[in-house]
């Protein structure tokens, strides 16, 4: 792995947003992770990627890292808030089983992107994670650097209603925040994206400001709620249909042959629900029942997954 100093300036993690991503990818690739690309569906967090949700289940080893664009329709601020976005990037690492030195691995990854632990105050502050929609929970921390939360660190105990055996460790880096920190920038749109200066420089705002404005309008004002309600219903039905269709009686055990396509529909339902929530058309009581409906899908997908080749014991 090249040291930071051997990188050209525009590739360095403290100079460019993409340099930060590339550095993290190299670091975790060097550790032995498969470096995946973002999942090609709208999700609320990197955890939803099947490489985390489903691969966290079952006994097989799994070490992966990837960037995941994450959509939080409610967090849109029309591009006016310096650090709130309805679309942002997470860098996600999943290590199963969680290695004994996972905290050290994490701290070294911070060092790789230029956070010197002799100079900065790095802390593990209690933060228990629970995702009602995924039927998942774990214990861990928010990782603070000089008072700023830069990552989430979780030991998964249960996902999709299934006990994790063995437990996977999940690291989620909030890339924009981390980049703002290492670049010393107070407004996300001021981030240097490509590490170039002058006319060649592309900023985060150049790439995403218009999108934030447009999607905020869409998420809060225009998104077609009749269509979304219908999409939720369709995704829910499709998920159940694919799950039902996927079960087979194998030679000596029950098998499932379509957990992944079914799970896609669960992801879809979850995102559609988030959009409906942002449009303010779901009441407090209904909200709970939608969350439970998505959770039921997630649980059924988890149950299917542990009966697939990748999800069961060898």
């Amino acid at each position: 792995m090249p040291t930071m100093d051997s990188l050209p300036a525009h590739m360095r993690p403290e100079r460019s947003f993409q340099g930060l991503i590339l550095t993290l990818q190299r670091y975790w690739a060097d550790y032995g992770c498969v470096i995946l690309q973002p999942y090609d569906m709208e999700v609320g967090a990197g955890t939803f990627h099947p490489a985390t949700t489903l691969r966290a289940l079952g006994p097989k080893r799994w070490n992966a890292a990837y960037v995941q664009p994450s959509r939080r329709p409610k967090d849109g601020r029309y591009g006016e808030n310096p650090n709130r976005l309805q679309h942002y990037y997470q860098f996600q690492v999943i290590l199963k089983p969680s290695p004994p030195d996972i905290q050290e691995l994490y701290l070294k990854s911070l060092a790789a992107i230029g956070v010197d632990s002799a100079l900065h105050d790095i802390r593990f502050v209690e933060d228990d994670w629970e995702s009602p929609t995924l039927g998942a929970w774990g214990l861990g921390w928010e990782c603070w650097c000089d008072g700023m939360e830069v990552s989430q660190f979780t030991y998964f105990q249960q996902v999709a209603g299934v006990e994790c055996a063995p437990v996977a460790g999940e690291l989620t880096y909030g890339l924009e925040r981390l980049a703002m920190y290492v670049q010393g920038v107070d407004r996300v749109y001021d981030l240097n994206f490509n590490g170039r200066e002058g006319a060649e420089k592309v900023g985060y705002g150049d790439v995403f400001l218009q999108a934030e404005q447009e999607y905020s309008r869409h998420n809060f004002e225009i998104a077609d709620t009749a269509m979304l309600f219908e999409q939720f219903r369709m995704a829910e039905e499709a998920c159940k249909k694919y799950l039902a269709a996927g079960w087979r009686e194998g030679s000596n055990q029950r098998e499932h042959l379509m957990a992944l396509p079914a799970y896609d529909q669960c992801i879809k339902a979850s995102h559609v629900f988030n959009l409906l929530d942002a449009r303010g058309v779901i009441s407090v009581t209904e909200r709970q029942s939608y969350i439970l409906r998505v959770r039921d899908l997630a649980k059924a997908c988890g149950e299917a997954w542990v009966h697939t080749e990748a999800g069961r014991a060898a």
Partner: protein
Amino acid sequence: MPDLLLELFSEEIPARMQAKAADDLRRMVTDKLVAEGLVYEGARAFATPRRLALIVHGIPARQPDLKEERRGPRVGGAEPAIQGFLKATGLSSISEAKIQSDKKGDFYIALLEKPGRPALDVLAEILPVIVRTFPWPKSMRWGARSARPGALTWVRPLHAITATFGPETEEPDVVQFSVDGIEAGQTTFGHRFMAPNAISVRHFHDYEAKLQAAKVVLDPRARKDMILADAKTLAQAQNFELIEDQGLLDEVAGLVEWPVPLMGSFDEEFLSIPDEVIRATIRNNQKCFVVSDPNTDKLTNKFILTANIEATDGGKAIVAGNERVIRARLSDAKFFYETDLKTRLEDRLPKFDHIVFHEKLGTQGERIKRIERLAAEIAPLVGADIEKTKRAARLAKADLLTEVVGEFPELQGLMGKYYALAQGEDASVAAASEDHYKPQGPADRVPTDPVSVAVALADKIDTLVGFWAIDEKPTGSKDPYALRRAALGAIRLIAENELRLSVLEVTNSALGSLLEKRPKEAIIDDLPSDLLAFFADRLKVQLRDQGARHDLVDAVFSLGGQDDLLLVVRRVEALGKFLDTDDGKNLLAGTKRAGNILAIEEKRDKRTFDGAPDPSLYRRDEEKALAKAIDQVKREASNAVAREDFAGAMSALAKLRPAVDAFFDKVKVNDDDLKVRENRLKVLNEIRAATRAVADFSKIQD
């Protein structure tokens, strides 16, 4: 005698769990030692973010030997029974057993000597069990072993166990045990960043000293002292004052092994936000202390953070980083605050019609209307302006829908006050936003402004009546809606403001409003009386907590119809004072004696002795004197009670005492003449009746 040193070294333990965990560790280990006959001299436990540590001083090196006699089968008993006895006791032949004779015959007795085991072995047995059964509020599995059944769980992954045992002057032994692959040893680690290397430890003293050298302050109290002292010094160096905050100090001391307080600042423009909002932002989100200017008593633009390292640049980067986060947080807070100011409180109210307060009790909107109506009824009773009270009740909860309260729920009420003042509301109306939640606990301030008092009472009574109506009363330790606190709050509002009102009338009125909208919820018979009994219970608890006599509450409520809590409190006070006097004590004794005699005779004759005694049947002067005294006292006591002069009523009662004493001294109640006997029992009944002018003496404990 030897000492035990135990350390459980793990990943970061949540700050809020550390103190209890240290205490649990000490308790569990020492309880087990004592149960094993190992009486120790002393024990102390410590916690840091990464370790729980325990030192137990003066443990005997061995358990005491135990001698036990075990009784076996009868002499000449069946062979299998004798064989079984030999096996159980380890005797090689029955001739080794003694024979003991008693009434039932001759029996074999085995004398067993159980030699005490070395404490080291006992520890090796009990410590792994304690690790396995440690009561963390939440614990987890980790790593490859988590796939196996029975995997160790701990609050966060456990990495190392240090366990040594031995006298301070010698090389100690390692207590040999392992838990799920972690072998106990004598290796621990220093500060995560400043001294991460392994450290070999022997005894507590070198353990504590080596940790200190490795930048770990073991004792949480020492860390707190360091943080507080340094933070004060930093503030004072600039002629400012640290705002002390015990909860925050406890938490921060649980986040660092090597505390390094540093001071940072923020832009003065943020001081336009209310101090409480700045403090909540900086405290809750960033776990930093705020600083005030003693000249103005207002916050300054400084804050104090507690780092976990001595940074190589003296902390410049850490301060700069924290300043940046705090600036972003305060920008958010300022934005929230300024956004809130753009909407008038009353304009937020319609939204409450869509927010469910409780499934069975309707929306917040309905509740606010009920409170407004009830507060308006209470207003004249407490001397509050009705229009102001209605306005205050209407606006009191509006801040729940503001951005700032959404972010910092603990600022509810206070923000309402600020927003009300900002939109030009009357000062009393604004104050009610904050004060109608009070008093929140026994130590909280009780509002005195009549408008706040009326709204506060209405809020609490509506809550109580509502949850009573849907049968969600507190049971045992469960009180999810804090109804006990609400009732105690109402009692304190009434007592400390000396309010005169009928609890029954007010609760009836609140119930009426509730039933208009939700008629089917009236499921409890006689709800107001039931609620009144709950108030009586709360009053007893309060008096008991104050060290006053709570049995007197029963003595007063037992009279019936006592729903003016202020009068109840006053009567209880007067009664308490009276019973402290000789007159009081003797009269209580006499009244009880009369009561006891009556109870026995009523049972025997299967009748009561109500009704006026017949003066023609009086045979002795003492009877006549008592009857006369009763007449007089009854009248005087009742008059005094009618004037609410309870001290006067007690003085009147005191006059009864010599006559009662003389009566019991000279007069035999169970006279042979049945007519005379009946008449004397009626006189006794009159004593009881006379004392009931102030209280039911039979409920008073001796």
